């Protein structure tokens, strides 16, 4: 494996700087955002590298769990911010975060205990990257599906209420939009699985190969990750849409759009 040093990374950074300069000449205001994002990448990844180093040297369940929940709460905030008409109050945060907890944590623990079988099972070298991949992907699925659901409830409120007026239950009246929301949350991972290896080489696999792993081993891990991600995204999306659809109605099955924030 070729060790990277700071000079190597600075040379790569030059490419971003050149791109930013070209953007300025095109009078596009994207260059500022580009530089900020690049700096964030460098700082955030350096920090997480340091954190992981400390974590790997002190293998205790407490520290791993602390890290895991920190990642969860950050991802939960991200899910909330990505929804245009999110639920008001703590529900806006809790619905997505809880669904992510349910799916990502369950799937990660399952993979660690049943599939990988390390000793201890929470070995941070496996637990943290796995959880990170799962959170990152379920985050997308949950954010997309909840955004889609609340959006549909708002846009199609007349239809939903018309169906209630004809004696349908709230479940029946919103079933179509629930289906659509789950679908749109799942589409990215389905596409990623369908295109994997043909259109794109997945990032994790590429990283492993660059770091010196045998392609066959890297591929096995990538397949495992893909399956875990699709299971996690599916579970998380189903949970989020179920919670969301329930929250859209009160105990008398009235459509409660006042529970959603204005965009």
């Amino acid at each position, binding site marked *: 494996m070729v060790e990277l040093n700071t000079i190597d990374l600075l040379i790569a950074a030059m490419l971003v700087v050149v791109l930013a300069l070209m953007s300025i000449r095109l009078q596009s205001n994207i260059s500022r955002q580009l530089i900020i994002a690049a700096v964030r990448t460098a700082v955030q990844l350096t920090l997480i590298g340091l954190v992981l180093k400390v974590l790997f040297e002190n293998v205790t369940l407490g520290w791993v769990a602390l890290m895991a929940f920190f990642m969860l709460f950050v991802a939960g905030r991200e899910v909330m911010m990505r929804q245009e008409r999110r639920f008001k109050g703590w529900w806006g945060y809790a619905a997505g975060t809880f669904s992510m907890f349910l799916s990502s944590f369950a799937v990660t623990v399952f993979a660690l205990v049943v599939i990988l079988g390390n000793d201890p099972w929470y070995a941070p070298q496996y637990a943290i990257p796995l959880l990170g991949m799962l959170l990152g992907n379920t985050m997308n699925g949950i954010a997309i599906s909840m955004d889609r659901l609340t959006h549909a409830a708002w846009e199609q409120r007349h239809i939903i209420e018309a169906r209630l007026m004809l*004696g349908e239950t709230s479940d029946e009246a919103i079933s179509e939009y629930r289906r659509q929301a789950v679908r749109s949350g799942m589409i990215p991972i389905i596409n990623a699985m369908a295109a994997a290896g043909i259109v794109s080489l997945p990032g994790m696999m590429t990283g492993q190969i660059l770091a010196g792993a045998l392609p066959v081993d890297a591929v096995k891990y990538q397949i495992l990750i893909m399956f875990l991600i699709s299971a996690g995204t599916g579970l998380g999306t189903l949970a989020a849409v179920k919670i969301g659809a329930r929250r859209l109605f009160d105990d*008398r099955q*009235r459509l409660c759009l006042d529970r959603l924030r204005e965009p």
Partner: protein
Amino acid sequence: MSKAPPLLQINRLRRLMIGPVSLVLDEGDCLCISGASGSGKSLLLRAIADLDPHEGQVLLQGVPAEAIAPEVWRSRVGLLPPESSWWLPRVKNHFRDDMPLLLEQIGMSDSILEQPVARLSSGERQRLALMRLLSHRPQVLLLDEPTANLDPVNTRRVESMITGYRRAHKAAVIWVSHDVEQVMRVANRYYEMSKGELQPQEIEGQQWLS
């Protein structure tokens, strides 16, 4: 033997800007409400159908709404909103198969059922929405300007369709209408709504048939 409870009883119903409203409707009653737009007529109907939160009590044959599952309540106390909604591609998809529809009586033929919803005129939508509601056999009809988009001929057809249903099924009707002549034709009780309250009105030249 004690007297049977009224079909629909509304006790001090209140919501923002509305009420308290108390009404009693017996089988066959047709109560018309008119009033300026924004006076709360539609909001009152929505509260009775239990689509919006409200205070006070609404009872059907003596049973309070809270004691009845919401979907059952709304299929027995059916609301026809001013704008109809359609969510399936063709008209017939919105109707149950087992119900004969009396479409000729309201100036339409059965062929309209095969049409895509997007091709319907506003008047056709309004009449079909009424038929769709009636096919669920509600005991109370809450009609929010059911003839607003109709010409005089079809207005008369819809009026007699509703009157026929009310008699045949011993239903009660609350009918929001801006047309005073229509009120005189169909109502046995008449209220004016202003600032969220109902004021009883005289019905002149009453020709109402119970």
